[in-house]
C-alpha cells in the first residue's frame, strides 16, 4: 500500500519535472535567440544526461509542430536546437526586429564569402563589385565575418557567430555542404516578394 502510493507520487513527480524542464528549455531557447547545444541546455535543467536533454528538446519540437504558431523549434545537424520565426513570416514583421537587418546586397556578399571562404577580399570585390567594400565593413561590424591580414592580402571568413546565427555547422566543410543545399532550395523557389511596411514606430 505504502510503496504503491510512493510509486504513484513518483510517476506524477516525474511528469511534473518533465513539464518543468520542458518549460526551462523553451525559456532558454527563447532568451538565447541562437542555437544551443545539449550541454548548455543540460546546464539549464540541471542534467548531465545528453539523452534526457535531447528527449526534452525533441518533445518541444513536437509541441511546436502541433500548435498553430508562427514559431518553430529546429534540431540542427550538430545536435543543437534553436527557436525561431518560420521563414514565411519574416517578410511581414522584419521591420519590427530591433537589430537593423541586412539588405539584399550585403546578404549576397555574405553568402558568397561563406560559400568561398577562406577568400581574399580582392576576389570578393572582383566578383561582387566595388560596393562590396561597404558590405564587408558592415559584415565585420556585425560580427558575421572576420578579416585577417596575410601579407598584402586580406583573408575573409565567417565567424562562429555566423554559423550559430544561420544554424549551420561550425565545421567549414560541413557548412559549405549545408550552404549548397540551402542555395539550391533558394534558387528553386523564388522568395515571396518582400511585403515591407514603411511605418514609423512612433
Amino acid at each position, binding site marked *: 500500500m505504502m510503496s504503491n502510493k510512493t510509486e504513484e507520487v513518483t510517476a506524477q513527480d516525474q511528469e511534473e519535472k518533465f513539464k518543468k524542464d520542458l518549460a526551462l528549455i523553451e525559456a532558454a531557447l*527563447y*532568451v*538565447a*535567440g*541562437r542555437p544551443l547545444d545539449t550541454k548548455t541546455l543540460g546546464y539549464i535543467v540541471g542534467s548531465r544526461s545528453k539523452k534526457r536533454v535531447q528527449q526534452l528538446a525533441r518533445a518541444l519540437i513536437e509541441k511546436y509542430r502541433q500548435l498553430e504558431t508562427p514559431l518553430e523549434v529546429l534540431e540542427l545537424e550538430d545536435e543543437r536546437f*534553436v*527557436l*525561431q*520565426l518560420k*521563414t514565411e*513570416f*519574416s517578410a511581414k*514583421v*522584419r521591420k519590427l*526586429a*530591433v537589430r537593423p*537587418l*541586412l539588405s*539584399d546586397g550585403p*546578404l*549576397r556578399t*555574405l*553568402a*558568397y564569402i*561563406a*560559400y568561398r571562404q577562406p577568400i581574399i577580399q*580582392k576576389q570578393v*570585390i572582383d*566578383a*561582387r*563589385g*566595388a*560596393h562590396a*567594400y561597404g558590405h564587408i565593413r558592415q559584415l565585420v561590424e556585425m560580427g558575421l565575418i572576420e578579416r585577417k591580414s596575410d601579407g598584402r592580402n586580406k583573408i575573409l571568413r565567417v565567424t562562429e557567430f555566423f554559423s550559430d*546565427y*544561420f*544554424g549551420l555547422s561550425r565545421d567549414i566543410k560541413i557548412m559549405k555542404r549545408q*550552404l549548397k543545399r*540551402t*542555395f539550391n532550395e*533558394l*534558387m528553386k523557389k523564388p*522568395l515571396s516578394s518582400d511585403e515591407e511596411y514603411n511605418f514609423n514606430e512612433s
Partner: protein
Amino acid sequence: MTEINVNKPFYFRPPWNILFDLQLLEKLNPWDINLSFLLLSFLDEMEKRNEIDFRASGMALGSSSTVYLMKSEMLLELEKAPLAPKLQSDFIPPPLVLPLRYELTTTTIQNLLEALDNALKTEKLFALKASTSTDIIPPAGVIPTISAYLIEMEEQMERLMKKIITLADEGKLVTFSNLVHGLRKLEQIRSFIVLLFLAQKNRVTLWQEENSDEVFVTINGAQ
C-alpha cells in the same frame, strides 16, 4: 524583296539606304553605324557613276548629323556602347535569408548610466577645446552638414583610391570603365565625381586620347 528596282537610285540600296531611310536609321544602334565608311563609299560610287546629286549628298549629311546627335544624347544619358560580355563564370549564390529570432540583450540601465558617465566626461574635454576657438566657429547648422559631407567624401576617395591601386598593382591599365565596371549609372556618376576630387587633390592624373571617349587614370607619385 531582294530584287532591285533598277529605276531607283543606287543609294537606295544597302548599305547606303541607311542614310536615306530615317525610320530604319532610328531602329539601329548609332554605335553600329560606320559613318565614314558609308559617306566615303557613297562619294566614290557617285563619282564612279558620274551622277553628282547634291540633294542626295545633303540628305546623307543630314542623316550623319542625326547619327551624331543620337550618339551624343546617349552619352549624355551615360548610355554606352554594349559592354563586353561578362567574364563571370563564378557561381554567385543567392542572398542568405536571415532567420528572425528574438534575443535577450545584456545591456542594462546600469550599463547605460556608466556610458553616460563616460559621455559626460568627454563632453567636458570637448567643451574645453571648443572654448579656445569660439570666435572662429561659423554659424550653427552650417558646419555639421559640410563636415559630414567631407568626411564621407574622404571615405569615398580612399575607397576609390584603393581600387585604383589594386587595379594598378595587377598591372592593368586603369581606366574609368574599369573602375565603374558593373556599377549602376548613379554609382558611375558618383565615382566620376570622386575621381575628379582625387585629381584635384593631385593624387591621380586623368587623361584622354584623341578619338577615344575613355578616361585614363595614372597614380601620382607611383614609380
